[in-house]
């Protein structure tokens, strides 16, 4: 992988030059937190953010999108508005990039979703390293470092950003801003390693994920799920803020008085009562306990069986968003501590 450095003092110039690859979007501070948004000026960018309210998945799988239009006279027409929109997404943290790499496995081949994959192709990603706060546990989920899924990745090494070039487009960005970048020195490499070690030491949350699918298997009938069901409000906040939750609902919106309409895809959540309701009115997960259990089992066990690792990346958003104070880290700890035999 190509490695270069970019002076921090020239990041604004670099951002200006990257606009030829698309509109520059970055974390911006709003009331209540940070959001990824289009920049109107570079000073709006807040690269010192901890986590955004919504993850960057909103760019690739929008909260609501029109998939197709249908007319009684013309049949079905795919809706491709915005799919070609080129964006440069600045400042993604490793866990969020890791999450996109996981979503690629869901929405990519062999059954590629053309909406998701088009956006993935047209949106450039410039990642940025971060330091953990008290809610980050990406190190436990092995997503505190990424080696793919970005065009460029910047790590703070003092006066410069240590820059990893992760794609041909990233290389084009470097070429377009040629004189801003320079080769790294041995001292820069040492500084990068020191920074990396300091980040590893800074984690305060630790979740052991080895044998976790097996623990979940053992605790399928645990009383913990009923207890969580009593606490959970089924608001779906955890799913909405999760960078890897991808459940969606598809509905037809028919224009009144005609047979024309649009087919719309919207974010859904397995915490919602209607999520498992099927034709005829049967609902496979009528209780909140069943629904929250489903969420945990899918993320920590089902995804492992299908894709080889949990879908949780440890970003800490659900810990922040849950109004009932349910924390995945505590649930996992509780499951591990459950004892089935009388102690002697």
């Amino acid at each position, binding site marked *: 992988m190509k490695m270069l450095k970019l002076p921090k003092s020239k990041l604004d110039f670099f*951002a200006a030059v990257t606009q030829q690859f698309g509109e520059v979007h970055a974390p911006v501070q709003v009331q209540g937190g940070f959001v990824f948004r289009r920049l109107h000026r570079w000073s709006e960018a807040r690269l010192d953010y901890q986590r955004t309210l919504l993850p960057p998945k909103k760019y690739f799988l929008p909260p609501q999108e029109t998939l197709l239009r249908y007319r009684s006279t013309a049949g079905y027409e795919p809706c491709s508005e915005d799919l070609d929109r080129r964006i440069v997404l600045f400042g993604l943290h490793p866990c969020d990039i890791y999450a996109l790499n996981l979503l690629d496995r869901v929405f990519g081949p062999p059954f590629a979703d053309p909406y998701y994959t088009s956006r993935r192709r047209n949106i450039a990603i410039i990642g940025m390293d971060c330091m953990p706060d008290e809610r980050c546990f990406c190190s436990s989920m092995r997503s505190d470092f990424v080696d793919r899924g970005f065009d460029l990745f910047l790590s703070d090494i003092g006066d410069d950003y240590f820059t990893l070039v992760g794609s041909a487009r990233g290389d084009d960005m470097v070429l377009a801003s040629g004189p801003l970048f320079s080769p790294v020195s041995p001292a820069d490499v040492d500084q990068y390693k020191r920074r990396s070690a300091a980040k590893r030491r800074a984690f305060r949350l630790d979740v052991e994920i080895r044998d976790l699918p097996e623990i979940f298997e053992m605790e399928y009938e645990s009383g913990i799920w009923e207890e969580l069901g009593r606490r959970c409000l089924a608001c779906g906040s955890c799913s909405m803020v999760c960078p890897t939750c991808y459940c969606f609902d598809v509905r037809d919106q028919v224009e009144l008085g005609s047979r024309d309409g649009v087919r719309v895809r919207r974010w859904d959540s397995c915490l919602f009562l209607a999520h498992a309701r099927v034709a005829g009115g049967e609902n496979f997960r009528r209780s909140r306990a069943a629904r929250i259990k489903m969420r945990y089992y899918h993320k920590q066990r089902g995804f492992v069986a299908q894709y080889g690792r949990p879908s949780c990346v440890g970003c800490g958003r659900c810990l922040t968003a849950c109004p009932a104070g349910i924390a995945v880290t505590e649930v996992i700890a509780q499951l591990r501590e459950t004892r089935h035999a009388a102690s002697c």
Partner: protein
Amino acid sequence: MSSARPKILIVDDDADFRESLAVFLESHGYAVLHAPDSEQGLLRARLERPALILMDLMMSERTEGCFAIQQIRRSPELQNIPVFVVSSLYDKAPDFRIPPDRAWLGHDEFFPKPVDLERLLEAIRRYLAGAGAAQAEAQP
């Protein structure tokens, strides 16, 4: 009536520069609009639809004009308006060293400050004559 005269919008945080340039352009038959920053510049551009925009780059922040031009280029209502950059970027940031290429800056012409007024006037005439011809061609 000034509405018959082509409107040129000057976006620059230097009020003296705007005034002196306005006097020069008005003396050559143009109506001049002013904006002291990119936010007001974009607002005026949307409201007044000038025939041409003269944009500074380094205003309250040094890439402000760069971002404003990209917003113009990505706005369906404004994207066809010629944008001339009038800037001292390469004097004030000599280590920047990336030539003012249209691919990244999105401008039509680049004029370093202090601006060569005759060259500027000649370019404005050329662009606006082109726009006039295109408009005439579009008439049924």
